[in-house]
């Protein structure tokens, strides 16, 4: 038994790496329960970016001088780190983007516009974040393809049994699904969806923005064709994300943004494209942010993805138990065993904005709103929910302060 025990994550110790927790909010200690929107940044990531700017900064892939070479090594080193993190067969399959949304837009435009048409079916899930919903809805409308949604069961899981009927006689060309729902915390069976997509001859596009910070993402094991990730949710800076795609698909695709760096040869008459991934990285990229992305991956890998997943699993269980003590709170989503560290809830008769506002006065930061999932909110029959979400630095005391704050909300507004 002892030999298989995994080292447990000590969130109190991790917290010391995050300067933000020295801040007082309205004179109270910060309880940051909004990591699903964006995570806080450890000293290691901030230092890596600062160090890069102070010692190695220049534009990449251009100059012949020493600094340009250092900068290029930093940028391309980050690409290798992302590739290893995702178990990509080659780092050349990693395209840097601004964020996961842009990564999905690259696929929707550069693949979708040339491969979709009337009679084709684009399938997304009712759980989808707008990032993996709106681009597909738009491209389907533009190309005349059918846009269909995989329904949910009562616990917020995907109804895989409905897939065949939903596809009907249509030619399914794209299946797009998130790895983890940012609203309900449901962990989706992406491997099964990918297998079904491939049986149908479709490509599988996985939005792993909410998955990658919390569990191992192995693009080869997932069997997906495209996977989108973002740095800011996994302790990295905002402004940088990545698209992983299978090389033969990336090579066959048209470019997305056009301009400098993505070209091979430009004449007055015509332009030929550069090699993948340069073909998709027009203009000066977020160079120091890429370095910060790499440092963030090093940081969470050092903590351990398995340990992070286990820690959040325990927090989700603790949070659900504590909220179950409050009969006037309704929670949404799957049971603990199929849930990441995200809990959406409502307080009877009290609007989420009022809940979040009063909690803010207690130093407790949660999200209130539709979480970029308006179709899902409509399905749940609510305009908005409150959402508490956890990460590797979350401690149970923060959940206790949330519960105490909810009592105060009731006292003020009921």
């Amino acid at each position: 038994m002892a030999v298989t025990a995994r080292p447990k994550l000590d969130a109190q110790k991790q917290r010391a790496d995050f300067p933000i927790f020295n801040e007082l909010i309205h004179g109270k200690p910060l309880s940051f329960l909004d990591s699903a929107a964006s995570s806080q940044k450890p000293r290691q990531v901030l230092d890596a970016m600062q160090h890069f700017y102070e010692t190695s900064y220049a534009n990449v892939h251009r100059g012949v001088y020493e600094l340009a070479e250092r900068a290029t090594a930093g940028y391309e080193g980050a690409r290798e780190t992302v590739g290893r993190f995702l178990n990509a067969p080659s780092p050349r399959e990693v395209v840097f983007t601004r964020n996961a949304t842009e990564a999905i837009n690259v696929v929707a435009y550069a693949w979708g516009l040339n491969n979709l048409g009337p009679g084709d079916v684009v399938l997304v899930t009712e759980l989808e974040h707008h990032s993996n919903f709106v681009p597909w809805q738009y491209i389907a409308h533009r190309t005349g393809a059918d846009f269909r949604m995989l329904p949910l069961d009562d616990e917020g899981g995907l109804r895989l049994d409905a897939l065949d009927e939903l596809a009907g006689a249509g030619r399914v060309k794209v299946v797009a699904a998130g790895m983890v729902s940012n609203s309900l915390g449901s962990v989706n069976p992406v491997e099964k969806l990918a297998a079904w997509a491939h049986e149908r001859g479709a490509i599988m596009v996985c939005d792993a923005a909410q998955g990658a910070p919390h569990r191992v993402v192995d693009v080869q094991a997932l069997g997906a064709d495209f996977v989108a990730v973002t740095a800011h949710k996994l302790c990295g800076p905002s402004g940088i994300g990545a698209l992983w795609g299978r090389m033969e698909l990336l090579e066959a695709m048209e470019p997305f943004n056009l301009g400098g760096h993505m070209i091979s040869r430009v004449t007055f008459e015509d332009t030929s494209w550069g090699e993948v991934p340069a073909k998709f990285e027009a203009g000066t990229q977020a160079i120091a942010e890429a370095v910060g992305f790499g440092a963030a991956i090093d940081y969470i890998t050092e903590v351990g993805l398995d340990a992070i997943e286990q820690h959040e699993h325990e927090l989700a269980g603790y949070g659900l138990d504590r909220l179950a003590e409050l009969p006037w709170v309704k929670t949404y989503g799957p049971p603990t065993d199929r849930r990441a560290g995200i809990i959406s809830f409502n307080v009877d008769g009290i609007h989420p904005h009022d809940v979040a506002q009063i909690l803010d006065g207690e130093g407790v930061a949660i999200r209130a709103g539709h979480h970029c999932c308006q179709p899902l909110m409509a399905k749940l029959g609510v305009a908005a929910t409150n959402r508490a979400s956890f990460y590797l630095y979350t401690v149970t005391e923060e959940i206790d302060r949330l519960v105490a704050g909810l009592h105060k909300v009731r006292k003020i507004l009921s």
Partner: protein
Amino acid sequence: MSDQMYREVILDHYKNPRGHGVIEDADAEAEGFNPLCGDEVSIYVSFAEDGETIEDVKFSGRGCAISQAATSMLVDMAKGRKATDLAQMPKDELLEEIGIPLTPIRLKCALLGLGVLKVALHRAKGTPLPQEWAGLDELELK
């Protein structure tokens, strides 16, 4: 912050809204929606015989305490005033009445009802909505 925001007068209007309801065959009516938080407000106005004095105002809807309390306070302020005058009422007049510090996001909650009332009055009078409401274009006013 929250203690200032949820002061007694706000809570009173939130828990006991003035003029909550619907006016059938209203002389002016409109509805508005804040997509950010899902707040909804509909406002109904009836004019007195002169076709100008506001005889009655009612509102219905759902939303956060700030949007509902602000609309209730607006109803109190509106009764007995002239429609043309009210249609030109500056935002600050309502904000002074509300009298709490509002973050930019909550400002939209507080001004939803006033925007809806203005749409209703300008539509009834056939006049264009003042330019200053362009800044609140995230609100869907119908």
